[in-house]
């Protein structure tokens, strides 16, 4: 009788035990909702840094997809660790990765190289896929660069939206081209002008005073007044005209 009473004292552990243990042992990630340039997003993290950024506001859906993608669960936490919180706020405000820690583990060396290079593109500028491929010393891997960017787990802070098609058009984005356009415009980019150049087949612009050619969105190119701007369809056209590549945006790094 008393044994039965004692057995009835057995109870379920609170639902918070497993998540807290898995967070503490680094077998799960934590996440918080956070505001981003396009509205709500979820930011997940672990001991190595920010592991994912998702432009979404459906928590259940996000948790499911996270577990499928990363093979570990993700749980809502009260707040980001202070260091990541400061790093993220600064990254969003300056639109540069800065010192924000990213969890690079689980990414191939190639994807890491692509994303780290992408993080160097300044706000207000864009580069074609082929530029990334050349810069990381793998000029033929243009398609693989596209794949690596499509799988960027930390969009916005690693600005894959600043990588565009080789013909200068915006190209694909995980969240759709409209979102890509919106994020670029939010950082002060004149997307219409950019698309206008692409429509006319213009990939490079130069200055007839310096005889230097640039990617059209390079900050040096944007300093050139319209009167002194020369347009080129490709690198050899620019070279034939006696122009040399800009050392900042390196439009010809092959």
């Amino acid at each position, binding site marked *: 009788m*008393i044994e039965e009473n004692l057995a009835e004292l*057995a109870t379920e552990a609170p639902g918070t*035990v497993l998540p*807290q243990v898995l*967070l*503490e042992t680094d077998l799960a990630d934590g996440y918080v909702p956070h505001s981003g340039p396009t509205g709500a997003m979820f930011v997940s993290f672990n001991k190595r840094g920010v592991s994912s950024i998702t432009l979404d506001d459906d928590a259940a859906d996000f948790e499911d997809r996270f577990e499928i993608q990363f093979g570990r669960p993700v*749980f809502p936490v*009260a707040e980001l660790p202070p260091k990541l919180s400061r790093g993220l706020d600064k990254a969003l405000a300056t639109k540069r990765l800065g010192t924000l820690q990213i969890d690079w583990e689980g990414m191939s060396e190639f994807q890491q190289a692509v994303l780290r290079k992408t993080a160097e593109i300044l706000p207000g500028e864009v580069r074609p896929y082929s530029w990334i491929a050349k810069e990381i010393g793998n000029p033929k891997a243009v398609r693989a660069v596209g794949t690596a960017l499509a799988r960027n787990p930390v969009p916005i802070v690693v600005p894959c939206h600043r990588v565009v098609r080789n013909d200068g058009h915006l190209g694909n984005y995980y969240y759709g081209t409209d979102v890509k356009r919106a994020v670029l415009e939010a950082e002060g980019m004149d997307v219409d002008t950019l698309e206008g150049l692409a429509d006319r087949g213009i990939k490079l612009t130069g200055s007839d005073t310096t005889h230097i050619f640039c990617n059209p969105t390079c900050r040096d190119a944007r300093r050139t007044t319209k009167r002194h701007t020369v347009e080129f369809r490709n690198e050899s056209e620019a070279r034939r005209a006696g122009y040399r590549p800009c050392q900042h945006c390196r439009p010809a790094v092959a």
Partner: protein
Amino acid sequence: MTLDTVELVNSHIANDLDGAFPDLVRDMQHGIYSGVRRMVPSSADAEDITQETFIRAYRALGGYSSDRIRELNLPGWLWTIALNLCRNAARTRSRRPRTVELDRDAFFTGRGPEAEVVEADENRRWSELLEGLPSAQRTAVVLRHVVGLTYQEISVATGRPQGTVKADVHRGITKLQEVLS
């Protein structure tokens, strides 16, 4: 747990700690929590100690050879950690800080306030009854009858011989019967 499952769980943990550990927590958390709940005054303490037991277990297992893990009496071993934490909790009653704090609002327990009150009354009554026992007897009774450990597992958990453990359980139950009659 049957012998077969014990071997299976142990070898799973020995082969793939990170993969097997969440399942270990899922399986064992209710037993650990139920028992710890009878040994510390508040459910918050019990939750904290349950978490800390598994966190320490994970860190310890990470440093064990797979042979050592295969030979572990896991329930008994986990309870050595839990019992230690219960003893320490009696001295220092402060929550261990976590690296990250869960958003607790997102984890609704699903129990209404009324159920909580009824449970709280029952809890208090049994806590008082069990507190009346000498600590070795209380531990043995809780581990045997609330948690459902075997005498061998309790012996591992408490570091006392099986015969002594059996006697502790028997004496404890007899004493509870006397108080209740």
